[in-house]
């Protein structure tokens, strides 16, 4: 069971809730020890690196400053393996790393929910182990199992089983009932844009938490605190349940623009009290397009997680004469502008990145166009040619500065 463990001195309750968007198997021990079983959604994310990337994005959003994390094969080893900061171990590597640790780390081995209760017993055992010349976990594990109970008692036997990996730890699943509530300090805010900027962070966090609980908000409750005037309470009701931060922010921009303050704003409290289960669109029995779009969204998000957001999506065109800069991939698809009046003859398939090309006598080259790269990029201008040899037809260019040749596309 691949487990990601995070320790922080600050409470991790809200962050743990957001982690339910990464994996359903989240456990929180004492508000500061977070365990994620990454196996259930590993296929969805494509790799452990992608999972870690999403985890770090969430940690950034929830301002988790602690870097103390461990990626290990078993949850019962996680706290013991936490030596320095990050300790991301490859599959199968944890057991050998554990064996190299001092017996002092036995203090943190096993079920995290009973560590405090067993603290004095474990300390006594570790002192005794050192007294008899056992300083490393590998030495402890080298002892014959028959003598463990006889020499070190019940506690020794339990720790031996944890270190050996012969016991399986089942952590309780985390379930959050924390209210959707955040305070925003607004002492230094001078404009609506600045307030919206702060609200954006809060709404992003709310969106992830709503997503984790599969809820959508029907109303936002604001309490505005002023420097001299009494506080004002406002309720922003939504015509249909929403959870997307971008949509809420757009609506709030119009809503807050009508407000007039007579005293400086010092604090804003935001809470979501009215929530409903999130239903992805009203689905008609006769019309299937919404169902299809929802399925497509799921498929695209899975591919974007696996292959990267830059590599999957619907093309959005950009104003650029350079082929590689004229588009980027987005989700959801956008409406497109009218066609240009003139468009040079270019191939339908372009290589990303361009491949090196070696023009020889066999290739028949004919100049098609000249393009200038952006001033901040290297390479200078490019001369594009159509290179033909037999049935092969390539779109190649020569960089003016270095004279290097590249294949940018193919007409085949």
């Amino acid at each position, binding site marked *: 069971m691949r487990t990601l463990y995070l320790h922080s001195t600050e409470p991790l309750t809200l962050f743990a809730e957001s982690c339910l968007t990464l994996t359903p198997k989240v456990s929180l021990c004492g508000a500061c020890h977070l365990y994620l079983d990454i196996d259930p959604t590993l296929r969805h994310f494509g790799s452990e690196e992608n999972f870690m990337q999403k985890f770090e994005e969430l940690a950034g959003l929830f301002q988790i400053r602690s870097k103390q994390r461990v990626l290990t094969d078993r949850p019962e080893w996680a706290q013991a393996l936490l030596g320095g900061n990050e300790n991301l171990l490859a599959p199968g590597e944890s057991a050998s790393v554990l064996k190299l640790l001092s017996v002092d780390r036995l203090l943190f081995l096993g079920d995290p929910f009973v560590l405090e209760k067993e603290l004095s017993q474990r300390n006594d055992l570790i002192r005794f182990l050192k007294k008899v010349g056992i300083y490393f976990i590998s030495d402890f594990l080298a002892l014959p199992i028959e003598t463990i109970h006889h020499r070190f008692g019940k506690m020794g036997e339990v720790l031996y089983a944890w270190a050996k990996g012969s016991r399986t730890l089942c952590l309780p699943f985390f379930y959050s009932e924390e209210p959707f509530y955040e305070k925003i300090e607004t002492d230094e805010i001078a404009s609506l844009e600045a307030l919206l900027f702060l609200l954006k962070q809060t709404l992003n966090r709310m969106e992830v938490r709503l997503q984790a609980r599969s809820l959508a908000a029907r109303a936002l409750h604001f309490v505005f605190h002023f420097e001299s005037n009494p506080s004002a309470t406002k309720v922003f009701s939504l015509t249909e349940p929403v959870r997307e931060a971008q949509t809420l922010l757009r609506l709030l921009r119009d809503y807050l623009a009508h407000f007039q303050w007579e005293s400086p704003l010092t604090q804003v409290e935001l809470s979501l009290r009215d929530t409903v289960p999130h239903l992805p669109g009203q689905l008609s029995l006769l019309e299937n397009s919404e169902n299809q779009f929802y399925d497509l969204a799921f498929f695209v998000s899975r591919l974007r997680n696996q*292959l990267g957001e830059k590599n999957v999506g619907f*093309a959005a065109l950009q104003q650029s004469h350079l082929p590689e800069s004229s588009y980027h991939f987005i989700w959801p*698809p956008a409406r497109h502008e009218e066609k240009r009046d003139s468009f040079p003859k270019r191939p*339908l*398939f372009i290589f990303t990145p361009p491949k090196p090309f070696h023009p020889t006598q066999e290739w028949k080259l004919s100049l098609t166009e000249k393009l200038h790269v952006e001033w901040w990029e290297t390479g200078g201008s490019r001369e594009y040619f159509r290179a033909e040899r037999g049935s092969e037809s390539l779109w190649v260019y020569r960089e003016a500065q270095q004279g290097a040749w590249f294949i940018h596309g193919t007409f*085949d």
Partner: protein
Amino acid sequence: MYSTVNPLPSSNSYSFTPSSAKGGLIQVLSRGNSKTEAALLESTQTQKANQSYFLWVADEGVLYPEAVHQEWEIPLSHLLFVKAAEPKEVWKTALDAAQTGLFQTIFVRPSQACPTAHLRKLQLVAEKQKCSIFLLTSFEIPHWMLKKTIGPAKGQRLSTKRNDAYSVSP
């Protein structure tokens, strides 16, 4: 007299459904004209571009979106682009996509061949989901797996031996 619309659609290839409504693998080996152009032309003739989704998946590069927007009737809001890191991922993504049943047309441009078992899976899924999968390859694929071949054969043949994955025999 046979009706062009079969009231009882069947997976049997001898049913009276028009061939354009059935799915399957279509190999594009066009010479003279562009392979990509030939595939796009064929797909736009058989599908209504505004009503169905298209998928492009390749590992060496991408379909040039601006050229598609300027020269073809396929709206970019109905064309999903996937740039895979390696040819295995291209084949895997094509199979995944066909299994979803979301795409009427899938363009696959891998730089290497795949095991014939995978190709057979792709064929079965394409026929079941009525999805046209255009294979823009430089190597020939066993003809019994194909619904159609566009363009002349080149003389290279994909090995059908079980362990000959990613190999092309002359």
